[in-house]
């Protein structure tokens, strides 16, 4: 946290570079093979568990497949191998029942720690409500600290991606960029703006069908379900743009409702949010009697 603060205040250029580096982490790369560690503590922890699981599987694979390969080379009938007749060995069978249990415990223990961490959504400093619609996301800023807000907006696929993705549009998906990043289907008109170094609680729901709000770099995936409110949390340390997509099949345009999270320093965020709040108040002022009328009707 201090490190990021230092960069912000003293070394603007480096901060920009750092942001670029983070941006590179936040979008998928061509020929990418593995998960990326992301930019939050939770996403790093998830990455560690993923890698530990992968290493364990590789190790078991080397032993098991290695034994099979040796058997296939050494015990060929064509090389005169004569089959043994044994068909059990209690000691070995106990070993290969108990050893996997120990390996599983070594996987379950760190995983449990992270699950508990991920579930702890209390003591957040601000709340954003996320609503999945067919096929766009709605964002409501509920509060920052004790102060309530009424900022609401809808975030859709950006117009260029939208034109390009039409059937046989003739437009080139490789030419859809944002900030120099290939952003085809990963860009929106209004990104979700959030502050860095702040514990943000997301409350997630759905309006029509089930969606899932997924930003890989934050390590958050939460189903957005009508009639149910789920929650998740994050603390982002590095300013940057983090992209994600809807992860639960939600109809024909399921592939076309991306998520863009723009993390900015708290002061910048506060300024942006106050502007939005003022705009929302202006927009609502003349229409103020409307809800009452609707209620009466």
């Amino acid at each position: 946290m201090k490190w990021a603060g230092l960069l912000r205040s003293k070394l603007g250029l480096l901060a920009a570079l750092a942001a670029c580096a983070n941006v590179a982490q936040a979008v998928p790369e061509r020929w990418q093979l593995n998960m990326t560690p992301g930019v939050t503590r939770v996403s790093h922890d998830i990455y560690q568990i993923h890698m530990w699981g992968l290493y364990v599987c590789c190790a078991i694979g080397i032993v098991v497949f290695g034994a099979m390969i040796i058997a296939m080379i050494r015990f060929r009938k064509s090389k005169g191998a004569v089959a043994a007749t044994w068909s059990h060995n209690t000691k070995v069978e106990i070993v290969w029942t108990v050893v996997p249990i120990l390996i599983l415990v070594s996987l379950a223990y760190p995983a449990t720690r992270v699950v508990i961490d991920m579930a702890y959504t209390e003591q957040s400093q601000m709340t954003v409500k996320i609503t999945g619609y067919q096929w766009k996301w709605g964002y409501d800023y509920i509060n920052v600290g004790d102060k309530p807000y009424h900022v609401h907006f809808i975030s859709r696929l950006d117009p260029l991606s939208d034109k390009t993705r039409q059937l046989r549009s003739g437009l080139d998906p490789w030419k859809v960029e944002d900030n120099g990043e290939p952003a085809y289907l990963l860009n929106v008109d209004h990104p979700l703006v959030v502050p860095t170094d702040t514990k943000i609680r997301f409350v997630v729901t759905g309006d029509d069908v089930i969606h899932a709000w997924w930003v890989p770099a934050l390590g958050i995936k939460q189903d957005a379900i009508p009639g149910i409110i789920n929650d998740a949390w994050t603390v982002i340390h590095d300013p940057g743009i983090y992209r994600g997509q809807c992860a639960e099949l939600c109809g024909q345009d399921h592939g076309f409702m991306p998520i863009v999270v723009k993390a900015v320093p708290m002061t910048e965020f506060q300024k942006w949010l106050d502007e939005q709040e003022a705009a929302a108040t202006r927009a609502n002022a003349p229409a103020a009697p409307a809800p009452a009328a609707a209620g009466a009707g």
Partner: protein
Amino acid sequence: MTTHVAHSDAHHDDKPHGFFNRWVCSTNHKDIGTLYLVFAFIMACVGALFSGVIRTELAQPGLQFVQPYFFNQMTTLHALVMIFGAIMPAFVGLANWMVPLMIGAPDMALPRMNNWSFWILPFAFTLLLWPLVQYLLFGTGGGAIAGGWTLYPPLAIQGGDAVAFSIFAVHLMGISSIMGAINIIATILNLRAPGMDLLKMPLFVWTWLITAFLLIAVMPVLAGAVTMLLTDKYFGTSFFNAAGGGDPVMFQHIFWFFGHPEVYIMILPAFGIVSEIIPTFSRKPLFGYQAMVYATASIAFLSFIVWGHHMFTVGMPLGGELYFMYATMLIAVPTGVKVFNWVSTMWRGSLSFEAPMLWAIAFVILFTIGGFSGLMLALVPADFQYQDTYFVVAHFHYVLVTGALFSIIGAIYYWWPKWTGRMYNETWAKVHFWWTMVFVNVLFFPQHFLGLAGMPRRIPDYNVAFADWNLVSTIGAYGMFLTPFMFAFILWHSLKKGAKAEARAWEAAHGLEWTVPSPAPFHTFATPPAIHDEDLAHGDVTH
């Protein structure tokens, strides 16, 4: 005595005359087994056609061929057709053919119900596919169901009347499966030849017995879930409608209470097949026969209590997530026992590599890779990243294609000489195997990378960063698309020109099925055979 009966059958085997009498009215387990297998093959080709559309659209970024809604119909139908139309009927077909032969029974216990279980299926799939056919041929209706094979509401009931077609189709498939399962249980528990104790049964029979109980337990649950969907859509109920006081997540719990045992319904018979093939071509008894039986039973039991791992991101309470993670990880233990036993069976054996053995070995390796990704998926924090991505797509295709399907192909090569009395061409079968081996991995392995890089599943179009691996995957799919034709040609050629098969078609094959002539006469074991332990598939039965 057995051979005497069989021989007299071969001379006047009273096969019904005429196509209608022979096939439509059949009550013979072998003919019904053949019907199931032919039906499964046709459905596998239909399902492959759907995946051809999917992979063609996904070959490059941008939408080139189909609208997203049609794409969703393809993914939905591909899954339903492959699961209920190809894999499950293929296993039932193998059970029909082999269970009576392996336990010394003259036929299935309930032959007329057997006929009905099969003949429901063509009607079920006509119902399922009709909305698509109507849309493509006549341009009417909204096309097939497009909400995913998991049928999650509220999305599933947004579809047109194809939803009703599909739900009735699922009802019919369920009825067929339940009747098939009852028949298999009745056959195994009642028609074993004297001396064929439960713990002397071949593992294929054991795994099918356990699978049949799974089917009876969970197919009614699926029927209930889809019926509630139907009444929600057409009769104003609110089982899963939050606005009416219902709960959309409740559907997922019910669905996966069916869905997870369903996964094992599609893999336990495969375990059985591999446990028959590997000892034969290792010329060595199966290692740990009883451990295999108990491991299968443990896996079946655990399959009922792990459904939540399909829904880690729906917002379950912390305790629920932890419980489902631990329970799921536990499945790795009996599954590991099985893999270790297969490897131990090969160890110090005398191995030869005929086609069935190649498919069985490929099964053990590639299914284990599918098991590895399954173990990774069980880890809740990591699952939050994997859920609903191509990593999951890669995982279940490794267990269902290189797992279940490979075992089915291996089984067909293994028992083909028994069914037809003809050997297949070993060289061509090896070409078929190695071709499949290369392209199936080119098709599915890169999907792990796509998922880890962040590509969601069930999307018709994607960011350009995913373009390269998607193209590779599509190339693999095109290679795979040739394999059913290769397989059909090899089998057709064998029927016409194949060398005559001996009764014991494989040198070290054990089991009652190899004591009857090849091809197996129309009626076998009209008189129960005498059981000689050395005929059984797994040497020492006291352990």
